[in-house]
């Protein structure tokens, strides 16, 4: 299907901005309990923390609920290769290095191939609840392909939630269409609201048949992004805002961005670390612009947390990602493989499976709350970070040597709070550990007091202890939060009795390299 001709069919009537401005009432996001360290709805939260209609929208959406991301999977289809802006952290020879696995190209699909792929994945992964279009360019620079894909999927698999991720330049033109296709989650990447800063991030935008550069380009982009955000929230569409943290360029400014997007009704803010290695061939990669360290990123996220819900579980995944966040199963669903698959889209089986997932989820929350009650009354000021090896389901169920990432929890007398994740090289390659890999793992979790695993060998155990990280395997296959709280209680008791001294840990690395799936 020829995009240039199908475009008109999907054009929205431009809405009158004045009407929309009238409609915008106060911020509709859910209230955070910011500052207390207690989870709020974007982070660890659950039903009690937000209006029922919003909870219904996010509860099975891994990109909108940290709690859901342990249980539910998402997939992206790469149907939108064209882009209408240029970012300095992006090299278009590959997928966007900041919202995908760097230096790799997604397999481009037609809308028809994408629909088939969705059905294939939905029957193989019953916990896949969300279909997103994120590129590899900008979905709204390819409106024909994007909306045709949504159309096909909503016919074939009506239970799957649709979402898209855009740079916002074309967004105001498509809000009506987005609404018509029941796309109820939209992510806008907003890196600045100040054109002076924008000029350092965006060399050009393609606007009204011209290539516009410099501050003028950034001004157009920010105006369109904020206008689009206002229009979406006025229409009751849930909005997440992504921002790439670029130290020395927009890091301080992102606090302002956070305020601006919150005031326009954004539901969740996802501040991601800049990915910029020279080999990605991006402007930032080539001119040595560094990304933030783990501590810098967390400090910025923490400083915005009082304002609104912060997302910390984003894996900056590819435009063709498949699976739970943090796992990559795209290699199982390449075009040639799905064309041969016998697809059986069984809604009943999917629902039955998801009911089981919900049971597990409730058990997890109950176990956490019971454990939390025993922590009540503890009034220690100290907090520690711990790393967890998990395959999902909210359990400590991964072997140290098989972990490709660790999830990071902050433990305090308020409980256990998910604060991030660290990608690592596989420590076990072919069954034996390698010295270099272990050093990388230690650097990645160097700010942690302990690491929770289902199993760990003697050698890495000794090396971790030497590095000051406590390897903990006594909670194998148990729920993460419940175990972490129990561990923290013991830790506090030991510090109080003088058995151990509380040590403040150092900073840690956010890894820049490409993530290579194990079975690729």
């Amino acid at each position, binding site marked *: 299907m020829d995009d*240039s001709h199908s475009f008109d069919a999907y054009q929205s009537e431009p809405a009158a901005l004045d009407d929309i401005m009238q409609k915008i009432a106060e911020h509709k996001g859910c209230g955070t309990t910011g500052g207390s360290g207690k989870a709020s709805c974007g982070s660890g939260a659950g039903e009690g923390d937000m209006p029922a209609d919003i909870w219904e929208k996010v509860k099975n959406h891994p990109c909108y609920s940290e709690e859901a991301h342990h249980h539910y999977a998402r997939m992206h289809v790469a149907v939108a*290769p064209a*882009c209408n802006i240029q970012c300095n952290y992006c090299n278009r020879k590959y997928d966007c290095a900041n919202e995908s696995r760097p230096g790799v190209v997604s397999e481009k699909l037609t809308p028809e191939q994408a629909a088939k792929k969705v059905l294939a994945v939905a029957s193989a992964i019953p916990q896949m609840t969300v279909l997103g279009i994120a590129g590899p360019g900008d979905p709204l620079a390819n409106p024909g392909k994007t909306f045709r894909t949504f159309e096909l999927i909503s016919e074939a698999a009506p239970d799957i939630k649709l979402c898209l991720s855009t740079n916002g330049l074309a967004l105001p033109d498509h809000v009506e269409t987005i609404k018509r296709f029941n796309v109820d989650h939209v992510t806008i990447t907003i890196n600045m609201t100040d054109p002076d800063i924008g000029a350092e991030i965006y060399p050009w935008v393609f606007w009204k048949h011209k290539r516009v550069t410099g501050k003028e380009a950034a001004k157009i982009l920010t105006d369109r992004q904020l206008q689009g955000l206002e229009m979406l929230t006025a229409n009751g569409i849930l909005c997440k805002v992504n921002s790439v943290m670029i130290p020395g360029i927009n890091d301080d400014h992102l606090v302002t961005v956070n305020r601006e997007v919150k005031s326009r009704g954004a539901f969740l803010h996802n501040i991601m670390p800049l990915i910029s290695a020279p080999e990605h061939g991006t402007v930032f990669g080539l001119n040595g612009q560094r990304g933030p360290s783990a501590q810098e990123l967390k400090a910025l996220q923490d400083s915005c947390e009082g304002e609104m819900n912060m997302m910390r579980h984003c894996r900056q995944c590819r435009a063709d990602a498949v699976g739970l966040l943090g796992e990559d199963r795209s290699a199982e669903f390449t075009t040639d493989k799905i064309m041969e698959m016998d697809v059986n889209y069984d809604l009943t089986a999917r629902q039955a499976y998801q009911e089981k997932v919900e049971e597990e989820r409730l058990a997890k929350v109950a176990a956490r709350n019971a454990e939390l009650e025993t922590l009540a009354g503890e009034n220690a000021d100290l907090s520690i970070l711990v790393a967890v090896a998990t395959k999902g389901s909210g359990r400590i169920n991964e072997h140290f040597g098989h972990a490709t990432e660790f999830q990071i929890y902050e433990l305090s007398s308020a409980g256990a709070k998910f604060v991030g994740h660290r990608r690592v090289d596989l420590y076990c390659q072919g069954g034996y550990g390698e010295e270099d890999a272990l050093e990388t793992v230690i650097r990645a979790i160097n700010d942690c007091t302990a690491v929770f695993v289902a199993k760990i060998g003697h050698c890495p155990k000794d090396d971790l202890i030497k590095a000051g990280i406590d390897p903990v395997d006594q909670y194998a296959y148990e729920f993460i939060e419940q175990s972490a709280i129990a561990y923290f209680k013991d830790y506090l008791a030991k510090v109080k009795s003088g058995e151990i001294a509380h040590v403040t840990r150092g900073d840690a690395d956010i890894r820049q390299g490409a993530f290579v799936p194990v079975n690729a």
Partner: protein
Amino acid sequence: MAYKIVASQCTSCSACEAECPNVAISEKNGTFVINPKKCTECIGHFDIPQCVAVCPVDNTCVIDTSYPRYQPSA
């Protein structure tokens, strides 16, 4: 003259195809190509050739001097 696309640099992103006012651009063997018979260099349509303006890779949509300059019919 007409514009042509340097195949080795084309990322096959399709951005030019949708912007061409003459429908001169199509995909062929994994990259995009300009039909020189249809290309008007955007003369009479826009100030600058749309493929050049929207292409993410510099110097990929370039002038092909083997064709005579486009003459808009008066």
